[in-house]
């Protein structure tokens, strides 16, 4: 197993009050596997990513990557965030080179690697542009190239396409699939969107409402490229949605938002960003 979480709990304390965000989360990710995490807003998905990235440390339990306990950030685990977090004062090329520079790699091989990964995301032409000159989708592709240039063991993606329109998102799904198949990277991908999770993942893990635990795991064996409208996929989507809906109902109840949910909405569409509107 490349990534293993063993009974990982996380509490945040704020002004003396402490909230339990994750409770005894255990799961593992195989080398080369594409795992998607779905769950209601606030259930701790981003926290899970931070724990694996080493940006936060668990209150209890263990996170290991390639058999070694995570004790801080490391170049074997790079995160792609929803807001691409590109450095606005650096060109696209320099952004992609950033991690390599931090690692003390020589300028010549930095340039070579950056060019290689910009080609991979089809953005060679924009190497000298600044981030603000790019569209949202292009920025995310640069962020992916920047992460991959570090040659991490695992790519952690926290709703990387969450802010994009459906069309761009679909294009990026294809692009990401291509990259995954070409590089054989292990990917842990957080999303609100069940359809996105089923199109991309080998495994979809449903995280329960706070305190987050892994509620259920779904294996998806369908070959790729997958069509969103494949009937087999839709069956799986409906099962995931049912599981998810119970969790969203809990969040709604906890937060006193029942009146916002129409009574007729039994199972929402798979493409709705579940929980994101709460």
């Amino acid at each position, binding site marked *: 197993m490349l990534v293993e979480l063993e009974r990982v709990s996380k509490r945040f304390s704020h002004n003396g009050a402490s909230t339990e965000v994750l409770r005894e989360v255990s799961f593992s990710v195989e080398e080369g596997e594409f795992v998607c995490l779905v769950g209601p807003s606030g259930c701790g998905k981003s926290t899970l990513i931070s724990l694996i990235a080493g*940006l936060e440390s668990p209150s209890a339990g263990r996170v290991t990557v390639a058999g070694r306990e995570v004790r801080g950030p490391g170049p074997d685990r790079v995160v792609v965030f929803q807001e691409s*977090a590109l450095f606005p004062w650096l060109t696209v090329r320099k952004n992609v080179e*950033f991690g390599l*520079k*931090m690692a003390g790699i020589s300028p010549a091989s930095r340039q070579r690697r950056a060019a290689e990964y910009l080609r991979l995301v089809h953005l060679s032409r924009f190497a000298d542009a600044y981030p603000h000159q790019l569209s949202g989708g292009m920025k995310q592709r640069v962020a992916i190239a920047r992460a991959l240039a570090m040659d991490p063991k695992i790519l952690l993606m926290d709703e990387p396409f969450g802010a994009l329109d459906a069309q761009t998102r679909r294009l990026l799904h294809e692009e990401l699939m291509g990259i995954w198949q070409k590089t054989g990277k292990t990917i842990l991908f957080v999303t609100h969107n069940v359809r996105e999770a089923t199109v991309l993942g080998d495994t979809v893990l449903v995280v329960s409402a706070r305190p987050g635990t892994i509620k259920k795991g779904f294996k998806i064996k369908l070959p790729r490229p997958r069509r969103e409208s494949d009937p087999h996929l839709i069956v799986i989507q409906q099962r995931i949605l049912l599981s998810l809906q119970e969790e969203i109902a809990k969040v709604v109840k906890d937060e006193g938002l029942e009146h916002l949910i129409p009574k007729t909405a039994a199972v929402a569409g798979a493409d709705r960003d579940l929980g994101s509107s709460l």
Partner: protein
Amino acid sequence: MLGLVGRRLTDAEFLSALGGSLRRMVIGYGAVCAVGIGAGVVVGRTRWLNELFGTVAVAIHAMPGAVWVPLAVFFFGLSEAAVIFTIFLGAAGITMANTSNGIREVPPGLLRAAETMGARGPALFWHVTLPAAVPRIVDGLRLAWAFGWRALMAGELLIPSIKGMGRLLNEVARARQLDQLIAFMIIIAVVGVVVDYGFFRRLERGIAARWGLAG
């Protein structure tokens, strides 16, 4: 009037006065940049200092530059050092406040991204925190130039023993030469505007374009 301004600009006595003023400004402003940015960095990275100076900074901003002159004279006597100190006191606060705000307001997402790519400690500061704060720092430096220029004039007007634009203003006013007085005032305004537009606005526009900020 323009002719008068032109004639003044070739007058040796005037030029040495202007040169003296500019020299004090350059020294004072240099100290403002070094100490203001340095202190701003320290304050921006130290929580309790930041809370402390947050309130003090507001009080310092509210202080007209001329108010610092007596304090400067108290320490340095009626000397050139007192004028330079006045510039320093008048402009260091705004530089420090903008620098520390800029440092504190670096988007946490950028820092997290940088950390996951192996940046930490001094490298994180040099390659992420500081460049991310540059637009705010430059904004502070531009204001500091304007504040410093005012403080310089206040200092020179109130300390007449020093050869500079302030003393010339006082002299022609006492001699009731209104045209000369206005010619000097125009020159002082023009120097301020030239530096502001010719240098700082351009710099800011360049930074805004590169950093992708509106404006």
